[in-house]
Each structure stands twice: as C-alpha cells, then as structure tokens.
C-alpha cells in the first residue's frame, strides 16, 4: 500500500479541507483543521502534513533542473549527433549524417560485415520522437517499401531495431539532386522536363498497383541520378489502401501543406487521386518554376492556368526571365509552349474534385507522352475551356448589373488616393530624379493630373503620350536608382490603370513589382501596395491568379506595415471584392470587409476615401436596412473628399441607386443618371467605369419594364466593350444578356435569341455548370423562343430553369421575372393548368420578395 493512498481514497475531503485552510491566515489554520476533523484525526494529520510541506518547500517545483533540460537539449546545437560516424548499427557502420527529416534522420552508412562493401541510406527515427504513434508510422513505411520494386523507387534493403529499440530501415543510397534543382542546373527544356515527370508518374503508378498512395510527392522527395534517372523517395506518410485501418488515421494530417491536395487538407479520405494532384503540382512547378501556393485559409489550392505563370513575377520565385532561361527559352515562348495541351493536362490533374482528375497516374503519363509525340491528348478538347474557366466562379447574387458596378468600383480604391495627393511646389526635373522615390511618384501623378483636362475626349491622348514618353525614358535608361525606377513605373502603371489602359497598366505594374523587389527585397510595403494594384489588373482576366497575388500582397502588408495599417485595410477590401466574385465564401468575405472597415475607421490619418470603398463593399448583398446606411455614409465620405465631380462619388451614387431600386425605382433611375453624368464628365464615354454605370442604368430600366429605353443603352455598352475590351468576355455577356431580354420583351424576339445564345456561349465557359447566372441565361433563351411561339423548344429551357432555381438563394427580382416568363409561356401556349402551377410559385415569390437582401 502506498503511503499516499489516503490522499487518493479521500481526495475530495482532503482537497476541500486543504483549500479551506489555505484561505485562512496561517495562524488560524491549525485550529480550523482541528475543528473540522475533530472525529477524523487521520484526515487532519494528512492535511496538516500537506501544509507543512508547503511551508518547508524550497522551490523544488519551480522548474525542471537545468541539468535535465541540458541533457535533453544539450546536443541540439551540433545538429543531432545521435549516431556518430563509426557507430555500428546491426551489420552497418554509420559514415555520416545525410539528411534530416521531421521524423527521422537519414545517415549514409556502409555494410560492415566484410562480405562486400555497399553504400546504403540508413533511416532512423529521431531520438525523442520514438513515441508509439510515430514508431508505428515508421514501421508502416518499412512495410510499404518492402512491397515496392520499381527502378524509379528507392529500394528497401533491410531493416531492424537499434539497441535502444528505435526502428531503422536501410535503403538504396541515391546520390542526386531534387528534380527541380537538377532540371534547372542542366537547363532542361520543357520536353526534357516532361520526360522526368513521366518517369515519376510511372513510379507512382507502380506504387498504386501495390495499393500504396505516396501522399507526399514533391521536388525534395524526387532525386535525379547523375545518369538522369529519377528516384522517388520517402514513403514516410504513404498509405496502404487496404487493410490499413487505425494507423492510417495517424497519417491523415501528415502532409506538406503547399503540396497537399484539397481532400488531404480537408482531412477527407485519400485515394490515388491525391497523388495525381501532386503530380500535377510537380508538373506545373517544373514547367513554370512557380511553387504551389495556398491562400491563408490554407484550404483552397488555386489551380492557375500554368502558361500564365510563365510570364508572371512572383514573390519567392526567381524573375520570369530567369525561370525561362533555366528552361532554355524566354518567358513568352515558355508561355506559348505550356499553353494548350499542357495547360489542359495540368488543369485536369489539379481538379479540386478527385473524381474529375486523371483516373490514374498512368493516364497522366500517357497524355504527356502523347503530347511529346504530337498526338492529340485524351483530356477532351471540347471540355478544355470549360475546365480552365470553371475556376472563375460566379457571384452569389446572380444579378448582372451590380457585378459590373463592383468591377468598376474596385478601380477606385488605390487610384483615388494617388489622385488626391498634391505636391506643394514645382520642382526641377533633375532634382526630382535624384530625390526620393515617393517624390517621383507624386511628380508623375501631378504631371498626369495637370495634363488631364476637365473636358472629355481629346485630353486622354495627351496623357497617354506623356505616360508613353515617361515609360520610354525609363525603359531606355536601365541604370539609375532601382527604387526611383520602381516608384516611377508604379506611378505610370497606376496612371495607365486610371486611363482604362489595362493591358499596358498590367505590363508596367508587373515590371514595377519586379523592380521594387530588386530595390527593397520582397518584404516592403511598397511591394505590397504594387502587388495589390497588379492583382486588380490581373483580376480582370484571371481571377484565380489575382487571388494568389492578393494573398501575397496582404501577407507582405501585414508583415511590413503591421496588421492595423490602412494599407492592410485597403488590400483587404480589394481582396474581399475579388474573392466575392470568385466563389461563394461569403462569411470569409464579410469578415475581411468588417476588418477592413474597422481598420480604416481606427487608423490615424485621412482614410476617408478608403473607408468609403470598404463601406460600399460591405454593403453588397446585405439587407436594405444594413446596406443603405453604409452606402449613404460612403457617398457622404466621397462627396467630402472628392467633391461632386469625381468618379468615386459617381460610384457611390451608382451603388446607392442599385440599393434603392426596390424601394423607389424612379429615384434609383435619377441617382444612376447623375452617376453617369459625372462619370462621363470625368472619364468620357470610352472607359470601363462609364460603361459599367451605363450598364447599370440599362439594368434599372429593364427591371422596371422600360425595355425600349434599356435596349439602346445596352447596345452602346456592348459595342464599346467589344471595341475597347475584346478580351473581357464577361462584361460582354452581361450586356448581351440585358440586351437580349430587353429585345425579347419589346417585340424583337428573334434578334434577342441571337444575343442570348451568344451570352450563353460565353457564360458556359466562364461559369460553373450549376451557376445561377447560367441558369437565368438559359431561361432567357427559352423565353426568346417562346416569344417566337416556338413553344416546344422553349419549354425545356424555361421550365428546366424554373426547377433548378426553386431551392437556391436568388435575387427575388430575378426569381419573379423568371417565373413570370414561365407563366407567360404556358398561357400563350394555352396550357393553363401548367401556368396555374407556376403562378402559385410566383405568388409565393412575390409575397416573400421583401425578405431577401439588396443587390
């Protein structure tokens, strides 16, 4: 019997009594215990002893002894001198430490039994990590390796346990570089790199046939020999697909975050598809030199069109030119080589849904082989564009007009701050060049502002000339202070942006980012600011890529400017707006915007303009009672900062108009007209922002049934968009949709059909299959057919759409008009019974229209 048995047996009594005694002054404790344990001397003696122990303690429980800690950690500084050279482990002698993993150390060793000399890699679980979990995982690796035999997989030779019980395994010694290092050092071109990936895929496939999933395929686990052959290593977190139950769970979380598949990150069950995904990442990295990245939620791998990465500048990655040089080509040629088949192959391997990827590593390898031989690849060309574009997901609010407003709105957050800066005095140009970068920025902006006349039209030419000339000067003078150059490029890029010259702006901003990094290193707040500007530009054509850049910008901003800096608030706003259009992470978007508003309200200095942007964004998709005050505050702030004739003020008016629509459509119309007047005065008609407002005005008119007023506006928008922004098909689709519906309602159903089918074709590529906008467009095509009395063709489209939207959240205006069109079709067709059924739904929709949010 243990002497402290009494303590455990009567724990509750002891603890209560001790606690009570400790509340008293020391002098009173003895009498207290005596009183409480008058019939229980055993208990009293124990508590008295406990108190005595406390009073005589000399700090024994302050901390573990330094010697103990020293012994446990003492060898850490020298690396782990766990197995010194010369140590004998079984029949092997340690030669030296080769590599250090998280769980295990790999030693170079030799067979020591004299029979023959063989160089081996001996992998041993690290000291201190030999807990049951990890030992079992380690043993599983041994079991898995023993089942594999393939020329491209490092072979298991032996295994055993060290005298202290730690398991070890002995493998073929592979001397070589990680696959990416090897490929860059040898300046392998795209085809040679494809050949390497094909070898890896073959090894992975062989493992799959033994029911082994590797789960950690990444460059550092793939070495290339001197003779150019690939060896796949480290099955440390591999998984057996069958008969591996409980212990699999240990490994579920073990992963390399940047190289993990979406289902791995979500902790879902893992199949061979996870390896296919990682092969896709490997392929993309080998071809473009960009390592996989995740947003800060960690969850979403964002597959980016790989060819796009070839020309992008990226934090943490070498410059595009350098990357292309390592592939024996130029960025542009690299982009061309990767676009097409390879884009499709990578996209297919990187599908977020495991079942949509290549069914096996072998299929991936065979598509690579077909590409190398110039044969058509198996990934079906018809679905190719869909696969690439499906990344561009839709806005949850379905209605077309506000989306366009949002796109334009984004443009004002950064540029307006630039525009409102003032330089006090004119300065000599030469002096400017020698002065600080920020001053140069202001100089250029002022130049731009000075040259921008109040009247529309002709002024733009002058400004463009000025910018082109400035850019030319910078580009022809490669020397000079990189910080100054970067600042000038950044200012010029922003100015192009403001002029709506997006392609040029993007090119210049990419260069500015690269120069900023050259001048300041990656971690600098100017880098963050430029990255966010670049992301806005990229978002116009490649939203997933833009999100990556935003994440990067936010990261840099938080680390350099601090988490509550206005810059962080600004980037959060833009990031959230782009995110809200990329998918439906509404909660995250709202959290980001709330944070942005809080930051900008609290930050010192004048952040009214940025706050207005954040407020407008935070009003989106909100119920009217929340949305309207935010929008009014935003409008008030902008009027105060910019005055009445400014694009920012116009955007606020537009937002307010859209929010007011359901309450007062006529008031909404006049607010929107005011916005349009301002925007035309500021930017002229040929500008994306003006087109956005015009599209909004058309939308308001269409919504209240003024189709003949809406149609000409849509036509104007469409024509200008096609001319000015031919690459941005999304904007065209919205205009086509609006125009088509207006025409269908105003007696031109045949022309309507043409436009609506065009819209559908564009949206089918850019939207995901279940998308509401796509469904609405399908319904609109159906309606245009019904209006031509082609009822049998119309019915499946219209009624199908009505079924699909039944249980999804949707802007009530859109729901009601869709149902109205279905009812109209059945009435015109003389099928009253069906019409009556939909009328019921329609009544319900009308009755509940006030419940949903504003948008």
């Amino acid at each position, binding site marked *: 019997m243990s*002497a402290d048995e009494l303590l455990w047996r009567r724990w509750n009594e002891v*603890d209560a009594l001790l606690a009570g005694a400790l509340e008293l002054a020391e002098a009173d404790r003895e009498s207290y215990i005596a009183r409480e344990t008058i019939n229980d001397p055993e208990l009293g003696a124990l508590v008295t002893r406990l108190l005595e122990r406390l009073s005589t303690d000399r700090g*024994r*429980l302050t901390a*573990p*002894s330094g010697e103990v800690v020293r012994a446990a950690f003492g*060898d850490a500084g020298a690396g782990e001198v766990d197995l010194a050279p010369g140590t004998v482990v079984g029949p092997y002698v340690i030669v030296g430490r080769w590599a250090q993993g*998280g769980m295990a150390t790999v030693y170079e060793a030799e067979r020591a039994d004299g029979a023959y000399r063989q160089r081996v890699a001996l992998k041993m679980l690290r*000291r201190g*990590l030999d807990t049951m979990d990890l030992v079992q995982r380690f043993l599983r690796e041994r079991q898995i390796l023993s089942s594999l035999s393939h020329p491209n997989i490092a072979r298991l030779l032996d295994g055993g346990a060290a005298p202290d019980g730690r398991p070890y395994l002995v493998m073929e010694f592979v001397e070589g570089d990680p696959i990416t290092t090897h490929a860059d050092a040898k300046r392998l071109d795209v085809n040679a790199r494809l050949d390497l990936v094909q070898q890896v895929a073959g090894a992975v496939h062989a493992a799959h046939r033994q029911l082994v999933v590797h789960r950690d395929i990444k460059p550092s686990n793939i070495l290339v020999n001197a003779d150019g052959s690939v060896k796949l290593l480290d099955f440390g977190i591999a998984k057996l697909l069958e008969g591996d139950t409980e212990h699999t769970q240990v490994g579920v979380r073990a992963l390399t975050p940047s190289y993990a598949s979406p289902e791995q990150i979500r902790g879902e069950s893992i199949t061979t598809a996870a390896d296919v995904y990682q092969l896709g990442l490997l392929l993309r990295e080998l071809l473009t030199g960009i390592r996989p990245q995740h947003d800060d939620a960690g969850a979403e791998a964002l597959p980016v069109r790989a060819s796009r990465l070839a020309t992008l500048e990226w934090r943490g990655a070498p410059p595009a030119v350098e990357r292309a040089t390592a592939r024996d080509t130029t960025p542009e040629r690299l982009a061309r080589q990767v676009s097409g088949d390879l884009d499709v192959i990578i996209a297919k391997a990187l599908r977020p849904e495991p079942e949509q990827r290549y069914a096996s590593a072998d299929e991936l390898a065979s598509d690579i082989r077909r590409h190398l031989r110039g044969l058509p690849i198996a990934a079906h060309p018809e679905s190719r564009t869909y696969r690439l574009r499906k990344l561009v997901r839709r806005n949850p609010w379905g209605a077309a007009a506000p989306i366009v407003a949002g796109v334009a709105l984004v443009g004002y957050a950064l540029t307006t701050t630039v525009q409102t800066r003032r330089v006090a005095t004119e300065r000599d140009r030469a002096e400017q060049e020698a002065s600080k970068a920020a001053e140069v920025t202001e100089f250029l902006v002022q130049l731009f502002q000075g040259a921008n006349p109040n009247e529309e039209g002709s002024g733009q030419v002058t400004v463009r000339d000025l910018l082109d000339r400035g850019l030319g000067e910078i580009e022809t003078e490669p020397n000079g202070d990189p910080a100054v150059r970067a600042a000038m490029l950044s200012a010029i890029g922003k100015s192009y942006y403001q002029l709506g010259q997006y392609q040029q702006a993007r090119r210049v901003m990419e260069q500015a980012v690269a120069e900023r990094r050259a001048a300041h290193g990656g971690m600098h707040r100017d880098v963050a600011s430029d990255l966010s500007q670049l992301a806005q530009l990229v978002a116009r054509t490649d939203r997933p890529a833009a999100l990556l850049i935003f994440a990067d910008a936010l990261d840099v901003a938080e680390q350099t400017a601090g988490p509550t800096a206005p810059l962080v608030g600004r980037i959060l706003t833009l990031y959230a707006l782009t995110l809200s259009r990329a998918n439906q992470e509404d909660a995250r978007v709202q959290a980001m915007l709330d944070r942005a508003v809080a930051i900008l309200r609290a930050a010192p200095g004048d952040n009214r303009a940025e706050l207005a942007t954040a407020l407008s964004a935070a009003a989106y998709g909100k119920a009217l009672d929340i949305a309207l005050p935010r929008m009014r505050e935003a409008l008030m702030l902008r009027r105060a900062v910019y005055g009445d004739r400014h694009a920012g003020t116009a955007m606020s008016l537009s937002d307010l108009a859209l929010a007011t629509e359901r309450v007062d459509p006529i008031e909404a119309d006049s607010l929107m007209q005011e916005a349009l007047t301002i925007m035309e005065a500021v930017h002229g008609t040929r500008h994306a922002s003006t087109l956005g407002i015009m599209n909004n005005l058309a939308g308001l008119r269409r919504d209240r049934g003024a189709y003949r007023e809406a149609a000409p506006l849509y036509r104007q928008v469409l024509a200008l968009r096609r001319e000015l922004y031919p690459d941005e098909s999304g904007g065209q689709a919205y205009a086509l949709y609006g125009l088509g519906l207006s025409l269908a309602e105003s007696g031109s159903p045949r022309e309507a059909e043409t436009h609506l089918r065009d819209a559908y074709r564009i949206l089918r590529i850019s939207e995901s299959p279940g998308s509401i906008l796509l469904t609405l467009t399908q319904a609109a095509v159906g309606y245009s057919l019904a209006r031509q009395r082609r009822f049998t063709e119309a019915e499946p489209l219209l009624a199908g759409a009505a079924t699909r939207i039944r249980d999804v959240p949707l802007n009530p205006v859109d729901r009601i008009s869709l149902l109205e069109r279905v009812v109209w079709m059945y009435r015109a067709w003389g099928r009253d019974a069906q019409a009556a059924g939909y009328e019921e739904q329609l009544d319900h929709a009308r009755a509940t229209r006030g419940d949903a949010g504003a948008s």
Partner: protein
Amino acid sequence: MTDSPGQVTRLLASWSDGDDRAFAELVTLVYDDLRAIAHRRLVAAGSHQTLATTALVNEVYLRLVGHSGGHWESRAHFFAFASRAMRHILVDHARRARAEKRGGDAVQVGLEEPIMAGNDSVADVLGVDEAVKHLAERNPRMAQVVELRFFGGLDVSETAEVLRTSVRTVEREWTRAKAYLLEMLDTREAEARDGVG
C-alpha cells in the same frame, strides 16, 4: 518543415479540440525549433540554472506562428502545446537515460549527466510526471496547471489566460497541486530509500 504558420495554427486548433493525433504532428513540426532555441539559451545560462521556458516558448511561438498570426487563441493553444511537448521531451529523455544507467548498452549517445532522483533541491521530471498523472485522475485542471507552470514555465497570469480562468484560481490550484506533488514525491523517495515498492 515549419514553413507554414497556417499549418501550425490549424494543428494547434485541432489539438486543443481534443484531437490527440495532432500532437504528434506538431511535435515533428516544432521539435527542431524547440531544441535549437533551448540549446542556445542553455549555452548562455549557467550550468545549474533552471531553464526559462516561458522565454523559450515565446521565441518558438514567434518563429512558428509569427506576429501576424498572433491572435490570442492560437497563442494560448501554443502555450498549452509547448508545455505538453516540453514535458514529453524531458520525460522521454529522462526515461531513456534511466534505462541506459540500468545497463541498456545501446548505441553511443551524447548524454553527459545522470538524472538526479532524490536530489533535494530540484524535483526530478519522472517523479513529477508520475505524480501529475495521478493528479490528473482526480483533478485534470490542477494537473494542467502543473504542466503549464512546471514544464511550460508559464507564470500565473499566463497560465490563467491559457485556462481561461482567474489568476486567483490558478494561484489556489497551484498551491494545492504543489502540496500534493511534494507529498507524492517525498513518499516515493522515502519508499525508494527504504526499499519499499
């Protein structure tokens, strides 16, 4: 291996949600840092100095999770984790050292000093570990207080924050825990001397 603060934060969260598997993952992620930093501090300290584990834990935390990810939640999780990890590493090491002293011949290891059971100035980690296990059966939170204070080196107010309770409560529980631990340690040592058990 420690390239992702997000990963550490997520693991910390799932560990504190009761997922013990995350602990092993965290140890593999954090072990190198913990060791390297402890080593550096030990070199700076005198030989009989106790280890200022709070500073150690803070330094590892900053390296892993960084300033930006530093909302309190994850810092609390990290303190709790680091204390557990510290306990784990020290106990593990002490246990092995004891096994080796008893004649497990073994691979050469770099252990210079013996573990001092019964040294009257400092409690030995194996004894405390045993005692804390007993304590945990009766009062898990009191056991956690010991883990945070003794192994993690947290002060009373940090401990209170991790446990989301008041400083006063932590002080009370820590005092009682000490009484029980000292009782258990002394009993064990007396038994060892007298050849009992």
